[in-house]
C-alpha cells in the first residue's frame, strides 16, 4: 500500500502547489481564519441536524428504494446455470479462465522444477545484474538471497512459490496492460482525460468490492484471484508510464524535433528512454500493489501465503498469520529493492562480462537445484509460530482484563462501543436521508468543489435506493471513528517524526513493514485483544492507516521551504510557534492529502472487518462470498464503492484540481 500512498500524495501535492495560490493569499492576508461563509454553513448544519433528527424519521424511505437484490440474484442464477453452455462463456470467458489457470500453473511448475537452489541462485543473479552488476549489485543480490532464505527457514517455501507464481503472471499482465494504457494516456490528451477519472476511482475503491462480480463469472479459483490482482495493480503502471512520457525533458524533445525526427522516431529514441525511470517505478509499485492483494486473492481461492493468512485468521492463529505476513513483506522487500535498483541505474550499460557472470551463476544454481532436493529441506526450518503465539497469549492474558487503573483491552472495547461507536451509529441512523445528504454536500463543497458535492450526493442517493442505507451508515460510523483515531495519533506522531530526527529513524522501518503487511494481519491480534466485533475492525483499520498518515504528515511538515522556516527561527520563534505559524499552514495541502489517504485506507479495512464481526456492508459482501447470497453481496459491493466515492470527495481538497 505504501506505493499508492506515496504516488497519490506526490500527484496531489504536486498539483496543489500550482492551485493553492488563492488559498495561500487568503491565509497570508487574513488572520481571522476561514471565510465567514464556512462558519455560516457549519452553524446552519449544527442547528439543522439535531432538529431534523427529532422532527423527521431517520433513514431512507422504502418508497424511494429500488429492489436490486432480486434481479441480481436471478442474474447470478442465470450465470451459474449457463456458465457451461452459453457461447459468451464458452468462446470468451472460458478461454480467459483457462489461460489464467494454465499460465499460473505453468509458472508454478517451472519454479518447482528449478528447485529451491535454482530459484535462489537465479533471483540473486538477476538482482545483481539489473542493479548494474559490480559492488552495488552485490547488496541487491544479498537482499534477494536473504529474503528467500528466510522464507525457507520459517517453512513457508512451498506456499511462497505458489504466491510467487501468481505474482509473476499478475505483474506481467498488469505491466503489459498498464504500459499499453499508459502509452495511450501519455500520447493522447483524450485518452488521458478518459482514463484519469477511472484511475482515480480505482485507487479509492476497496478491492473487496469488486471480488464478487469476478467470482460470479469465473467462480472461485485462480482466474478470479488473478484478474482481481491485475485490476488492482494496473493503475500505477498506467499513471507512471503516462507521467514519464509527458515529463520527458522538453529541451531533449525539441532538440530531437529540430533534427527532423518523425513522431515515431521521437517516441523510440527519446520519449520512451526518457520515461524509463518512471516506468520502472511504475513496475515497482505495480508489484507492491499486487503483493498487497495476496490475501484477498486467497479469499477467492488463490492459495499460497494468502491462504496461510486467511486460515490463520479463521483459526485465530496469530503466529501463523504474522509469519506468513512477514514472508509477504520479505518478498516485497526483495522485489522492491531489485526493481528500485534497476530504476536508479539510469541506463548505464552493463558489459557483456556481467551478463556472462550472471548467466553462469544462474546455470550453476540451476544444476544445484537439480541435484539437491526440489523443496526446501525440512531440517533447515525453524518454528517461530509457537513462540509468537505464546507471546501473544501473554499479552492477552495480561492486558485483556483486570489491569489495575487502565482496565484492560476488553473494557476499552466495551467503552468505545458504548460511548463512541453506538451513539455515532444511532445518530447517523436517526438522521433523515436528506439531512445526511445536505451534510455531505456542504462538507464536500466546503473542502472541495461543487462537482465533488454532486458526486457525494449521488453516491448517497445510490446507497439509499439500493436499500442498504442502514448497513452503510453502520459502516460509516466505524470509518469515522477509525479515521479520527488514525488522524489523532498520526498527526501527533507525524509532528514528532518531523521535528525529532531519531524518532523518524525509529518509526520509518516499522512503518515500512506495516505498510507492506496485508491488511488481514492486523485483524488477528485485535480480535484476540478486543473480541470479534466493531472495535476490532475499527482498531485494525486505524492501525493500518496510521503509517500513511504519519508519513504524509512528516513529509508535509518537512517539505516546508527551509528558507521560510529559517526566517521564522531568526525572528526568535519558539518550536511551538514554528509548528503552528509556519509549518502547519504551509503543510496544509499535504495534511489534507493525509486525511484523504487515511479515509481510503480505513474504509478498505473496515470493510474487511466484516470477516471478524464488523457488520455493515463488509459482512454482506462476506455473506455473498461464503453463503452464495450474490445479490446481497453485489449490492453491498456497490454500496462500498459509493461510500468510498463519497468519502473521497468529502476529503479531496479543491486545490488538487489544476487550474485550466
Amino acid at each position: 500500500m505504501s506505493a499508492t500512498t506515496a504516488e497519490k500524495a506526490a500527484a496531489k501535492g504536486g498539483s496543489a502547489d500550482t492551485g493553492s495560490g488563492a488559498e495561500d493569499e487568503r491565509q497570508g492576508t487574513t488572520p481571522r481564519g476561514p471565510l465567514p461563509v464556512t462558519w455560516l454553513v457549519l452553524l446552519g448544519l449544527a442547528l439543522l441536524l439535531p432538529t431534523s433528527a427529532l422532527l423527521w424519521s431517520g433513514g431512507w424511505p422504502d418508497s424511494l428504494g429500488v429492489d436490486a437484490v432480486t434481479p441480481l440474484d436471478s442474474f447470478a442464477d442465470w450465470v451459474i446455470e449457463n456458465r457451461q453452455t452459453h457461447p459468451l462463456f464458452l468462446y470468451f470467458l472460458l478461454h480467459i479462465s483457462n489461460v489464467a489457470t494454465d499460465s499460473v500453473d505453468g509458472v508454478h511448475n517451472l519454479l518447482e522444477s528449478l528447485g529451491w537452489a535454482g530459484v535462489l541462485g537465479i533471483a540473486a543473479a538477476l538482482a545483481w545484474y539489473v542493479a548494474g552488476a559490480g559492488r552495488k549489485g552485490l547488496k541487491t543480490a544479498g537482499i534477494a538471497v536473504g529474503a528467500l532464505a528466510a522464507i525457507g527457514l520459517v517453512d513457508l517455501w512451498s506456499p511462497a512459490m505458489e504466491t510467487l507464481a501468481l505474482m509473476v503472471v499478475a505483474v506481467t499482465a498488469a505491466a503489459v496492460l498498464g504500459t499499453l494504457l499508459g502509452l495511450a494516456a501519455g500520447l493522447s490528451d483524450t485518452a488521458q482525460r478518459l482514463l484519469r477519472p477511472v484511475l482515480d476511482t480505482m485507487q479509492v475503491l476497496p478491492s473487496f468490492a469488486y471480488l464478487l462480480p469476478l467470482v460470479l463469472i469465473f467462480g472461485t479459483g485462480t482466474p478470479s484471484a488473478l484478474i482481481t490482482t491485475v485490476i488492482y495493480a494496473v493503475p500505477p503502471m498506467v499513471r507512471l508510464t503516462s507521467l514519464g512520457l509527458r515529463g520527458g525533458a522538453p529541451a531533449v524533445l525539441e532538440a530531437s524535433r529540430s533534427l527532423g525526427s518523425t513522431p515515431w522516431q521521437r517516441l523510440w529514441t527519446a520519449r520512451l528512454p526518457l520515461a524509463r525511470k518512471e516506468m520502472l517505478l511504475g513496475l515497482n509499485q505495480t508489484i507492491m500493489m499486487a503483493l498487497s492483494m495476496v490475501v484477498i486473492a486467497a479469499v477467492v481461492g488463490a492459495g499460497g501465503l494468502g491462504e496461510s493468512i486467511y486460515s490463520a485468521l479463521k483459526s485465530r492463529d496469530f503466529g501463523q498469520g504474522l509469519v506468513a505476513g512477514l514472508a509477504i513483506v520479505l518478498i516485497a522487500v526483495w522485489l522492491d529493492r531489485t526493481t528500485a535498483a534497476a530504476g536508479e541505474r539510469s541506463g548505464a550499460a552493463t558489459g557483456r562480462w556481467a551478463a556472462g557472470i550472471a548467466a553462469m551463476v544462474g546455470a550453476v544454481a540451476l544444476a544445484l537445484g537439480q541435484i539437491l532436493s526440489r523443496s526446501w529441506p525440512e531440517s533447515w526450518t525453524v518454528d517461530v509460530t509457537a513462540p509468537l503465539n505464546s507471546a501473544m497469549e501473554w499479552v492477552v492474558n495480561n492486558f485483556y482484563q483486570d489491569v489495575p487503573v487502565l482496565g484492560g483491552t476488553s473494557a476499552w472495547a466495551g467503552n468505545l462501543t458504548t460511548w463512541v461507536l453506538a451513539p455515532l451509529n444511532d445518530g447517523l441512523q436517526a438522521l433523515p436521508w436528506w439531512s445526511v445528504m445536505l451534510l455531505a454536500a456542504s462538507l464536500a463543497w466546503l473542502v472541495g468543489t461543487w462537482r465533488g458535492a454532486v458526486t457525494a450526493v449521488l453516491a448517497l442517493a445510490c446507497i439509499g435506493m439500493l436499500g442498504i442505507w442502514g448497513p452503510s451508515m453502520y459502516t460509516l460510523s466505524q470509518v469515522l471513528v477509525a479515521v479520527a483515531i488514525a488522524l489523532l495519533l498520526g498527526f501527533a506522531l507525524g509532528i514528532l517524526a518531523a521535528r525529532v530526527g531519531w524518532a523518524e529513524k525509529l518509526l520509518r522501518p516499522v512503518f515500512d513493514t506495516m505498510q507492506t503487511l496485508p491488511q488481514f494481519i492486523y485483524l488477528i491480534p485485535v480480535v484476540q485483544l478486543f473480541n470479534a466485533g466493531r472495535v476490532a475492525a475499527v482498531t485494525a483499520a486505524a492501525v493500518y492507516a496510521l503509517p500513511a498518515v504519519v508519513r504524509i504528515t512528516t513529509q508535509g511538515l518537512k517539505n516546508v521551504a527551509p528558507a521560510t522556516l529559517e526566517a521564522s527561527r531568526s525572528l526568535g520563534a519558539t518550536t511551538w510557534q514554528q509548528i503552528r505559524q509556519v509549518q502547519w499552514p504551509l503543510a496544509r495541502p499535504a495534511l489534507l492529502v493525509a486525511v484523504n489517504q487515511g479515509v481510503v485506507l480505513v474504509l478498505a479495512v473496515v470493510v474487511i472487518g466484516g470477516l471478524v464481526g464488523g457488520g455493515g456492508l463488509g459482512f454482506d459482501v462476506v455473506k455473498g462470498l461464503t453463503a452464495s447470497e450474490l445479490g446481497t453481496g453485489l449490492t453491498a459491493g456497490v454500496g462500498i464503492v459509493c461510500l468510498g466515492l463519497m468519502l473521497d470527495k468529502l476529503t479531496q481538497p479543491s486545490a488538487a484540481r489544476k487550474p485550466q
Partner: protein
Amino acid sequence: MTAILDKATPEPIPGGVPADADTVFTVRNLWKVFGPKADRIPGDASLTDLSTAELRERTGCTAAVRDVSFDVRKGEVFVVMGLSGSGKSTLVRTLTRLIEPTSGTLSMDGEDVRAMDKKRLLALRRNRVSMVFQHFGLLPHRTVLDNIAYGLEIQGMAKQERRDRAAAMVAKVGLDGLGERRPDQLSGGQQQRVGLARALVVDPEVLLFDEPFSALDPLIRRDMQEEVIRLHRDEGRTMVFITHDLSEALKLGDRIALMRDGEIVQLGTPEEIVDSPANDYVRDFVRDVPREQVVTVARAMRPPHDGEADTGAALPPDATVAQGIEAVARGGAPARVVSDGKLLGVVDHERLLAVVAGIGLPATPEQAAEDVVQA
C-alpha cells in the same frame, strides 16, 4: 493576411539591403501570436498597433514576434539580441517551423518554408538547418558518440557509418577521448560541445544557436565563443545566433538585430548599433559598451600629414580602436591604416582618444573615408 502571403518575391526592407542570391533566409512581416484565435491579430490594424500588455488584455493573446523582416546573408553570423521575453527564441524557432509562424513570409534559398509539406520540412531540419540549444538537449541514456550521431540516425544512416562520422566530429570539437562517456559525466561546456558536434555532423547549410552559452560559466563561455569564431572562420557556415548578452553579440555578430517586445528595434553592424543607436532604448542598452572594442580605426582616421605616409605601424581598416591605441602607444607615433598596400589614412592619439570619449566622429566609415579623400 492573404495579401501578405501572396507576395511572391520578397520586398526590400526599408533601409536594408535588397534580397539577392546571397541571402539564405528571407523573412518578411513575420508574426507569431500565441493565444486563442491568434490568426486574426496580424491582419487587424486596430489590434496590431496595441502594446503587448494592451493586446493581452483585449484579446488574451501574446504577440511574441511582431511584423519582423530581415535577411540572413550567406556566410554571415547574424545575431538576434534582446532581453528575455523579447521574442528572440520564438523567432529563431519559426525559421524551421519548430514554432509555426502565424503570418508573414519566410523563405530559405528562395524556397517558401511556410508552404513546405511535412516531408520537405523534415528534410530541411535533417539536412539543411541544425540547431544548438541553451539546455543542450542531449539524450541522457546515450554516449557522447551516439548523441552526436543522433541526427544521422534520424536520417536513417547505417550504424557503422554514422558512428565513424560522429567519431571524426568528436575530435573536431575538442572532445577527444570522451566519446564513450555519458552526458551527465561531462561539464556544461563539454555538453555544449556535444550539442555543437551533433549540429555540425549533418553538415548543415545554416547553424542556429539559441542562447547556447548562457548556461555556462564566464570562462567556459569565452572558450566556446572562440570556438564558434574559429569554426566560422574555417568553414564560413551561415549562423543565426540568439543571445541576451550584448558583448557576445558584438563579439560574434557580423550584423545584429536588436529585439524588444517582439519587434526588431535596430538592425545593423555592431559598430552601427554602438555608434548610432536608433532610439533611446538601444542607446541605453549600449551605453556601457567599451567603444574602443567596437569602433574600427577606419572610423577614426584622418588624412596623413607630410612624412607620415611611410612611418608608423600599419593597421588593417577593420582593426579596432583598442588595437590602434596599442599600436600608437607602442610606436610612440601615429599609425597608418593600410588596405592592400594602399594607405587609407592615419590615426593618432588625439583621434583615438576622441573615440574613447565619444566625441566628434564621422557617422560612418564611408564618410570617414570620404573625409580623408577630400582632405
